[in-house]
């Protein structure tokens, strides 16, 4: 048998051994790598390692973990410190270099700093930062493995910003306080150090704002909140919230100056904004005398405003001169030009008065002014004893007090400055204040005998019924007050040298009022009502004058008023003029409405007097006396006094009207009880004199309400009134008796009167109608028992125009009774009119065979009811009275 060759592979032994070899390599490499990567250790000493944990706390650089705390133990030499061993990854070899700084990062939350918030969750960590970002320096640094940790976060070298040192005298800014430029935070205070000269602050300005800092930038402290209260007002300002807490520093840089790009440059930190520019605006005054000026308190004034301080005083014995160093405020610096003049103001008491009043309290001070707007500046001046002799004309003003006016304030005319107040002093002899004003030559013609001066305050408000007057002077006068000149008549003579200075415009105007040449009159009255001083005098609605004053004349027991009528209206007053009081409100109430009348609103409050001039009469002289009437009505008409004897009670009262044919002709003045009888005194207008005849009938009318009508409804409001029916007599009478009932309305009327006899009155009464064919032709005028008392006699009045209807055979029947016919066909109700149902009425019928017209006072019978055929009568009757027209 053939045998196959069995090839055996000898090499298999070797292949297998690859595996352990590979394994060895791999294992070895893994171990090696593991230990190699472990990194190296560095030791950092912390003052406070709270929050750190072994195996947990990381070392972070720029947010990357590059190591971990592997051990923590007390420092061998100083037990207050902790040595923290950090195992750093190999890749972060650069950590172990001299110059690197380490610090603990923990959450910080305050008004000035918010940082490290991520550590709230992740735990604190250690931060590392190289000393500088300069790569050259970095390369040159030596390795180091032990470090001391910083107390606080160092400056971020990658965004260092500009570091500046500020020198200040006191420490009131906290670390972290903001640096503000135009109220924007551009950096912060990093550090503060006490030195023997004061305090040094290190501030950092963010990189992007570096260019704002210039070589002559100025830094000053800003307190959180600034409150400046002065007479001009209160100003509260705040830079930022952070500065309120931590203080702050503000910086400003003049435009166009060089950039500050050097790190660690040094500046001075000023106390506040007012202390800046300490070296600017300095001028020197040379004088012969020091004048006892207290430089701490003394100021320099310009037109009464504080313009600067006197900062130094130096006496030079060689030249025997005193030099003052003055620092002017920015606003005023430009005024110290080459034409400026400085003088010292000292209190002066001499024979002619007291000068320099302000200096008495403040001590001597320096004042200056300039006459030109020249831009050429000087910085050395002579200090004079008095201001320049002003160019212009001098005038004197006299006033009762100085009104706190300051020397130098302006004299204004029509809002143009025409001069200024030079000085003022107390006159010794008459206790008045004399003011010396200077008016520029070109304006001196404005002052003449008609001129008056008054002081203008900042704002003057005068509100009255004439209108509101608001005057705001120019801005300077708002601060300084000003003297205003008013010259109403430019053509007047100029002889006066002294003028009166009045306190304000209102006083001035009041003085002016009576100066225009009007007239003054006297009014006499019993009752002033609400008139008072200043009350207007009104003519045809125009205010033409006012009440000047009034007083009670003790002898006549009357009030006398002095009034003034302005010139342009004074010729409206003549001897026939009547003045009357229009104070308050006049109310006339009637059913047609309530009428409210007042002369003017002012007269309600202030009272008022009006006048009327009914006739052309002689002019009156000044101080003529007039009577002041109670009211308009008293003036309008002349009245006649009459009296009534009252028979019955009524609701008449004072003011009740007397009416004739619905025209008001008078009114009741008063009711008097004499001997148990009521006498009514009334007045009637003179024009109605013709009513006051012997047989005129007066009676009271009051509201009457019945089912079918309301009589005198207006009396509901105005009360009862007296009505009059004119009599025919021509005899004038002043005494009447007052009837309680109205007379028959038909009395004295023209018409036909007839008599009817009835068995009973039934519902007939005076005024009951008489009908013919249902048209009223007359009324019952009166009635009474018949002579034989068997019946009632009624007097009928038939109207003139219908009197032709009454014939000898006319039949009269009582139309009151209602005819009611009840039958199988229905109820037939017949009546003449509704009123006859109530009041009764008489119907007349004329039979077809017309007879002659009835005579006056013919007697007829009054039937109780009509008969059937009477209604059928249709006679033809012709009206032959041409005076009457029956209009349809």
């Amino acid at each position: 048998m053939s045998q196959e060759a069995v090839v055996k592979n000898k090499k298999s032994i070797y292949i297998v051994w690859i595996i352990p070899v590979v394994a060895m390599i791999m294992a070895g490499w893994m171990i090696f790598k593991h230990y190699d990567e472990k990194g190296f250790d560095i030791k950092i000493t912390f003052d406070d390692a709270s929050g750190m944990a072994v195996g947990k706390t990381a070392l972070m650089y720029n947010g990357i973990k590059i190591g971990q705390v592997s051990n923590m133990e007390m420092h061998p030499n100083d037990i207050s410190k902790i040595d923290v061993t950090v195992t750093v990854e190999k890749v972060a070899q650069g950590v172990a270099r001299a110059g690197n700084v380490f610090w603990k990062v923990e959450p910080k939350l305050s008004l000035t700093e918010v940082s490290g918030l991520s550590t709230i969750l992740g735990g604190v960590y250690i931060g590392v930062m190289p000393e500088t970002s300069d790569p050259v320096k970095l390369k040159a640094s030596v390795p180091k493995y032990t470090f001391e940790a910083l107390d606080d976060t160092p400056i971020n070298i990658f965004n260092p910003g500009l570091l500046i040192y500020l020198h200040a005298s006191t420490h009131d800014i906290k670390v972290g306080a903001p640096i503000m430029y135009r109220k924007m935070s551009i950096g912060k205070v990093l550090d503060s150090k006490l030195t023997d000269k004061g305090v040094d602050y290190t501030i950092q300005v963010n990189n992007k704002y570096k260019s704002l800092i210039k070589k002559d930038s100025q830094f000053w402290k800003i307190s959180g909140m600034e409150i400046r209260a002065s007479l001009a007002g209160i100003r509260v300002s705040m830079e930022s919230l952070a500065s309120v807490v931590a203080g702050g520093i503000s910086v400003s840089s003049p435009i166009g100056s060089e950039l500050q790009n050097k790190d660690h440059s040094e500046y001075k930190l000023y106390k506040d904004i007012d202390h800046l520019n300490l070296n600017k605006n300095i001028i020197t005054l040379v004088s012969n005398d020091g004048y006892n000026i207290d430089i701490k308190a003394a100021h320099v004034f310009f037109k009464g405003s504080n313009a600067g301080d006197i900062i130094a005083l130096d006496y030079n014995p060689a030249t025997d001169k005193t030099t003052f160093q003055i620092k002017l405020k920015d606003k005023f610096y430009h005024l110290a030009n080459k034409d400026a003049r400085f003088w010292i103001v000292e209190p002066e008491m001499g024979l002619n008065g007291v000068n320099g009043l302000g200096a008495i309290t403040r001590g001597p001070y320096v004042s200056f002014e300039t006459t030109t707007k020249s831009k050429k500046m000087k910085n050395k001046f002579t200090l004079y004893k008095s201001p320049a002799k002003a160019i212009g004309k001098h005038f004197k003003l006299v006033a009762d007090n100085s009104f706190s006016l300051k020397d130098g304030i302006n004299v204004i005319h029509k809002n143009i400055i025409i001069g200024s107040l030079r000085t003022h002093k107390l006159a010794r002899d008459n206790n008045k204040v004399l003011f010396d004003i200077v008016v520029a030559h070109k304006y001196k013609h404005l002052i003449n005998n008609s001129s008056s001066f008054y002081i203008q305050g900042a704002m003057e408000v005068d509100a009255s019924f004439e209108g509101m007057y608001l005057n705001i002077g120019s801005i300077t006068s708002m601060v300084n007050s000003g003297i205003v000149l008013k010259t109403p008549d430019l053509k007047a003579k100029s002889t006066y040298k002294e003028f009166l200075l009045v306190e304000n415009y209102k006083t001035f105007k009041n003085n002016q009022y009576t100066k225009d040449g009007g007239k003054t009159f006297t009014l006499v009255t019993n009752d002033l009502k609400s008139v008072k001083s200043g009350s207007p005098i009104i003519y045809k609605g125009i205010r033409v004058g006012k009440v000047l004053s009034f007083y009670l004349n003790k002898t006549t027991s009357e009030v006398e008023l002095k009034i003034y009528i302005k010139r342009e209206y004074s010729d409206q007053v003549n001897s026939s003029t009547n003045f009357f009081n229009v104070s308050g409100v006049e109310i006339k109430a009637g059913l047609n409405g309530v009428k409210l009348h007042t002369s003017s609103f002012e007269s309600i409050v202030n009272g008022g007097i009006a006048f009327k001039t009914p006739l052309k009469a002689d002019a009156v002289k000044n101080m003529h006396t007039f009577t002041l009437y109670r009211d308009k009505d008293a003036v309008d008409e002349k009245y006649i006094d009459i009296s009534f004897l009252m028979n019955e009670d009524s609701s008449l009262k004072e003011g009740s009207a007397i009416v004739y044919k619905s025209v008001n002709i008078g009114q009741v003045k008063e009711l008097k009880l004499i001997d148990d009888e009521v006498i009514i005194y009334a007045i009637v207008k003179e024009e109605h004199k013709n009513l006051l005849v012997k047989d005129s009938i007066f009676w009271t009318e009051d509201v009457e309400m019945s089912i079918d009508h309301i009589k005198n409804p207006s009396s509901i409001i105005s009360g009862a009134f007296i009505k009059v029916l004119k009599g025919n007599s021509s005899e004038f009478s002043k005494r009447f008796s007052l009837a309680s009932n109205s007379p028959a309305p038909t009395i004295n009327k023209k018409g036909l009167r007839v008599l009817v006899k009835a068995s009973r009155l039934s519902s007939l009464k005076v005024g009951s109608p008489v009908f013919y064919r249902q048209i009223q032709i007359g009324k019952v005028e009166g009635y009474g028992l018949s002579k034989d008392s068997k019946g009632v006699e009624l007097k009928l009045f038939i109207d003139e125009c219908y009197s032709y209807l009454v014939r000898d055979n006319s039949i009269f029947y009582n139309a009151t009774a209602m005819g009611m016919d009840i039958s199988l066909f229905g109820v037939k109700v017949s009546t003449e009119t509704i009123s006859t149902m109530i009041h009764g009425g008489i119907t007349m019928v004329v039979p077809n065979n017309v007879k002659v017209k009835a005579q006056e006072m013919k007697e007829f019978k009054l039937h109780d009811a009509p008969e059937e055929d009477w209604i059928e009568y249709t006679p033809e009757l012709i009206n032959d009275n041409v005076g009457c027209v029956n209009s349809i």
Partner: protein
Amino acid sequence: MKYKTDISEGKVLCHLCELLHDDKEHECSQCGEKLHQRLPDSLAQTWGYLLAATLFLIPANLLPMMVVTAMGTEDASTIMEGVVYFFHHAEYGLGGVIFIASVAVPVFKLGVIYYLLLVVQFKQHDKAMGGLKLFHIIHVIGKWSMLDIFVVAMMVSMVQFQGLATIETGGAAIAFCAAVIFTIIASEKFDPRLMFDNEVIKEEEVK
């Protein structure tokens, strides 16, 4: 002691289908596989894999098995550190299991195979029966060493809360895996019949 072995009886066992043949045959009549008296290169291969496993066990114990990152802090722990941790927290059961599965068993396995190899090398026939029993034991429990890896794998896949807690495998996991796999292969490559042979069978060179 002399054993009746297949060599002494002149028989050969197919290592694949286990059909008995005469030692004259070179090919299995049933499955066609080449007939080997003993597993080829058994000793060499076993030694090789055993050494690899041993080598891998070193990093498996030195490197961290699991890196737990909780709240920003990393915590890497090796197998032993894990066991100690559990024992420290009185989790004796858990600690015990991990210790047995990750430390005791692999070491035991390696030790046994070393012993068996030495038995063969030094013809310690009297130890053969005991060795056979040991062989069977490690043959069965070998795979259970992967328990620890399984635990790590589960933890890694479950605890992935970015920011709060994450678990990642450390280098030891791979090394341990390799070690366990190699011990399994090593035990597979070892032919226990070698312990009963009088002589070390060398591969015949067939004419």
